[in-house]
């Protein structure tokens, strides 16, 4: 329990610290928001008025405090590019990104764990799995994206080359290739750790003993090996899913999917800093919440961890 409280308060502290670092960093970034709002021919009085209205001359801590209190009430500022509330930009894009992450996460968990178990259990399959994993870890998502687009969208024409689609099924169809590209690296990572965990567990004495007593291999694997190997697999999967969220930056840009990842990259390019602050903080929050959940679940599932605290 103490460890859970520690993990949660640590997560909150991390989020607050991250929000300050992001805000302070972007406040010294190049680009003049006043010129963006008023255009180049504004008078000095108008510029001074807008500066005062935006609070640009206040000290950093005061501006941060203003931003934080407003953000907590759901006011994340305005986008200079879209001329719209940032909060309004996030909603529909968040839905797309969450769907993409959910699809990629299912692929990572199902394929990654299956390949890992196969590699851990079947001795002869091990080199094949090891080779697949080495290759999978090394293929960056943006390289995989080009390959998938070239083969499955352009040559075969099975999937669209661009965009996120409308409606549930159309969206799913549009997001299939992006989800595959996103899941390769983390899928290989989960397969690697699963394979190692299963292999280690299968080599233990009790497994040999059970085998000697004539218990069928399938039952040993299902009832004992997999259950005992589950914890490291769970940890790896959680970290992988957390990593998928920041992976959307690259994959959404590669496939022209208008989720929050692509929004962040475009906002950095167009120096639209209210959007950059909001989206990057959102990604940090998701990431920190995921990793904290892993920590807490680990303690809940493993009596040894509980006893150790």
């Amino acid at each position: 329990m103490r460890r859970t409280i520690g993990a949660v308060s640590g997560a909150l502290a991390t989020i607050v610290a991250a929000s300050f670092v992001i805000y302070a960093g972007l406040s010294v970034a190049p680009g003049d928001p006043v010129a963006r709002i008023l255009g180049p021919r504004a008078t000095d009085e108008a510029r001074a008025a807008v500066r005062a209205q935006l609070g640009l001359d206040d000290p950093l801590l005061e501006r941060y405090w203003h931003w934080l209190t407003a953000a907590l009430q759901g006011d994340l500022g305005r986008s200079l590019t879209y001329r719209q509330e940032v909060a309004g930009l996030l909603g529909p894009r968040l839905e797309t990104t969450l769907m993409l992450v959910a699809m990629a996460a299912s692929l990572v968990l199902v394929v990654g764990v299956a390949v890992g178990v196969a590699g851990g259990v079947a001795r002869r399959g091990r080199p094949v799995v090891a080779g697949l994993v080495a290759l999978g870890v090394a293929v960056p998502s943006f390289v995989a994206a080009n390959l998938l687009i070239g083969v499955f969208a352009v040559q075969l024409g099975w999937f669209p080359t661009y965009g996120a689609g409308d409606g549930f099924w159309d969206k799913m169809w549009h997001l299939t290739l992006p989800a595959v590209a996103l899941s390769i690296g983390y899928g290989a990572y989960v397969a690697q750790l699963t394979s190692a965990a299963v292999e280690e567990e299968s080599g233990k004495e009790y497994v040999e003993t059970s085998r000697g007593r004539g218990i069928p291999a399938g039952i040993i694997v299902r009832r004992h090996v997999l259950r005992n190997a589950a914890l490291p697999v769970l940890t790896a999967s959680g970290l992988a899913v957390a990593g998928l969220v920041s992976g959307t930056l690259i994959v959404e840009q590669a496939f022209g999917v208008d989720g929050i990842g692509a929004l962040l990259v475009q906002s950095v390019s167009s120096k639209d800093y209210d959007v950059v602050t909001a989206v990057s903080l959102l990604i940090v929050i998701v990431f920190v919440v995921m990793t904290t959940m892993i920590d807490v679940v680990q303690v809940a599932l493993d009596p040894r961890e509980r006893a150790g605290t």
Partner: protein
Amino acid sequence: MALAWSRVVPRAAGAGSPLLLVSGAAAGLLTLLAVVGPWLTPYEADATDVLAASQGPGAQHWLGTDSLGRDILSRALAGARLSFAGPALVVLISAVLGTALALFSAWHGGWVDRACNRLLNVMFAVPGILVAVLSSAVFGAGFWAPVLALGLVYAPYMARVVRSVAVRERHRGYVESLQLAGMSPLRIGLRHLLPNVFPILLAQATYGFGTALADFAAVSFLGLGIQPPEAEWGVMVAEGRSELLDGAVQQSLVAGTLIVVTVVAFNVLGAQLAGGRR
């Protein structure tokens, strides 16, 4: 350096690993290519030739041309240097930061060590690509923004492996003798602890280089790192992306393959160098 190599190589090679030789040869060859590549280009890397645009591989252009008629082989060779220089600096920065932090925390132990550990845990929780993108927002897109950001993000990975060895060395008798002999902690750290952690540092740096290369190329792919028309592998993948729709796959294929082969070579070499000590 020579001392460290002589310690690393025989142990791994003694295990009779052809993987070590193959990955070492591949990594060495690619590094050589990055150094001399820009001088080997058959054409100017940014010379356009509209009449020869989007050609497949042929006698004139061995790997074909891109949509502006630039020779892809030349761009790949010329781009190798920037593609390697970025991650090499990332690894150097993270190795220096990580080792300094690890030696400092291992030396002092106690609450300093615990505080450093907490700091590392927080830093582990930060997604690298996000920091690199934000760094480009603050410092402007280019070479240095992603390099500095990734150097910082990778430091905890270096610190973790170095600390594990440094803590063990710290409590050896020779360190105490040197201390009693009046040698300053800084000198002991640099002259005696550092050479002992060097082999594991080298393995981790090799492993990290592959990942850093992929991340650096990713930032350029997003348009926030190296800027076109400069040749760099991530930039080439991005340019190849729009050519795909016209059925021209050569640029994506060449740049993508180079990235994947390099990452595999350095990953495998790093794992081999670390083999037996993890």
